């Protein structure tokens, strides 16, 4: 397949695995260390998109269409999740007047 070759020419799929792992780690570390919840939401999107990138790379490498369909599923679900997440953030902002994750510590024990 010429199209598949042009994507992976000179680049084996290993590079894509490494790139997405780096992106995924950046997202995960950001989610754990950042305090602003909007930024945390962005980190989650980054992690999801690293998965998308790797899926597309595998799809082109194996010459199979399934993985690209999976990408569509992930995009749709990520949109739904972001919608719900942002509305939860608005709800939290109304109650606390702030979206600093450190302030949400009433429940413990």
């Amino acid at each position, binding site marked *: 397949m010429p199209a598949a070759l042009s994507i992976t020419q000179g680049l084996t*799929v290993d590079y894509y*695995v490494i790139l*997405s792992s780096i992106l*995924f780690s950046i*997202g*995960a570390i950001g*989610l754990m260390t950042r305090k602003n*919840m909007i930024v*945390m939401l962005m980190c*989650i999107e980054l*992690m*999801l998109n*690293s*998965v998308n990138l*790797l*899926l597309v790379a*595998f799809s082109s490498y*194996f010459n*199979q269409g*399934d*993985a690209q*369909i*999976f990408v569509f*599923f*992930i995009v749709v*679900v990520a949109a*739904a*999740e972001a919608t*719900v*997440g942002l*509305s*939860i*953030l608005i*709800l*939290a902002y*109304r*109650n*606390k007047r702030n979206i600093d*994750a450190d302030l*949400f510590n*009433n*429940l*413990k*024990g």
Partner: protein
Amino acid sequence: MEAIIVLFLSGIIALFLGIYNQPKLTTIISVIGLIGAAIVQHYPLNILPAEYNLLEFNQVGNGFVVLAILLTLLIVLSGQKEFLEEKSHAGDYNALLLFSLCGGIILIGFTDLFMFFLGLEILSIPLYVLAGSRKGVSESSEAAVKYFFMGAFATCLLLFGVVLTYGATQSFELSEILSKTINSSGNAMLYVGMIFILASFLFKVGVAPFHFWVPDVYQGSPTVFMGYMSSVVKVVGIYAFIKFFHMAFGGLYDFWSTLIAILIGISMFIGNLTALVQTKFKRLMAYSSITNGAYALMAILYPSALSDSTLWVFMLGYGTSVVALLTISMIVNDDADEIASFKGIGYRKPLIGLVAIAALLSTSGIPPMTGFFGKLMLFSSVWSYYPWLIVFALINSAIGVYIYLRLIMTIMSKETATDTKEVIVSISQTIVLVLSLLLLVAGWLMLLCWK
């Protein structure tokens, strides 16, 4: 498949009736939808051509679908009083519960990773909303925030695991992954992918070391939806966990079984020892659900878990007792949620006392109850594979008996709590209490229906 269609349609109708401010009608529609779905699942019509059917249910899968629908029915009925107090949202609550249950059914019947991922998300996303549904209360929105971020993180871990598994096996079908994993051991990408998927499952079902969000989220969410999270989501999540690891990674049993056994042992102790010192009822139930989830997950350790009724009976006992106890908590307790307000309730309202005793005895595993048969079958099935884990489980059952008997003593004490709210049991809650009493005492008779 037809069950999902029935549930989805009744959810849509409930949502529209909610717009027209008909809370009672919504309840009726959702109850009819749930009963209809259970019937259609048990006696399938097969109107859809087989090639559109991406889900398959064996007898055990059918049993689990009916169990999930039954528990949701009990939860919908027990929450009606709270739904009706907030008239404008009654339709939303009912509909979101039904939509979430659709995801649960997909999660029981999946055969490939597409349906698995979709099912997990359809199960989870409505719950993020429901956890924060008490809008003015800051604990509720805190619970929603925590649940959302934990859930979204678990989803990301799952997806990364799925894509690595796909990279190693070139397939999303469970059966093909299984055949590839049996032959190609030693593929690093497959092992890393499996660890990611394992971590996300541990997050979703709340097993140590990823259990820390459970008590916070359960305490902050409204009691009805906590009931749904700790019964239906646990039932479905643990079944999907077992199905996934047996049907996709069955060839790597030696690798994951020891790891999971150790984590189960740890989380039993964490759940029980922390439950000992709790004064809030919902927090106690949350820690107890960590322990019970760990017991249920033991079924993953013996290979025939997907083809016999052991896990089903355990889950029947556990789910019913959770729903019964939380219904009682909804009737008796106020927002402060102290265990002390249960004092003497068994004398003031004999029905509540009776159901509470049955539920607590069943959870602690005392003989005539359903919970005992579940525990007995589960422990004896796992015994020949992991005897040391069963010793741990028995020690924990003993600690559990202490915790639950202490609760019974509070409920049956002669003195009553000083400032309790007036106890009113609505009709739908009475139905729930009587039904769950029947299931707790005689639910194990359903074993006779299994071939």
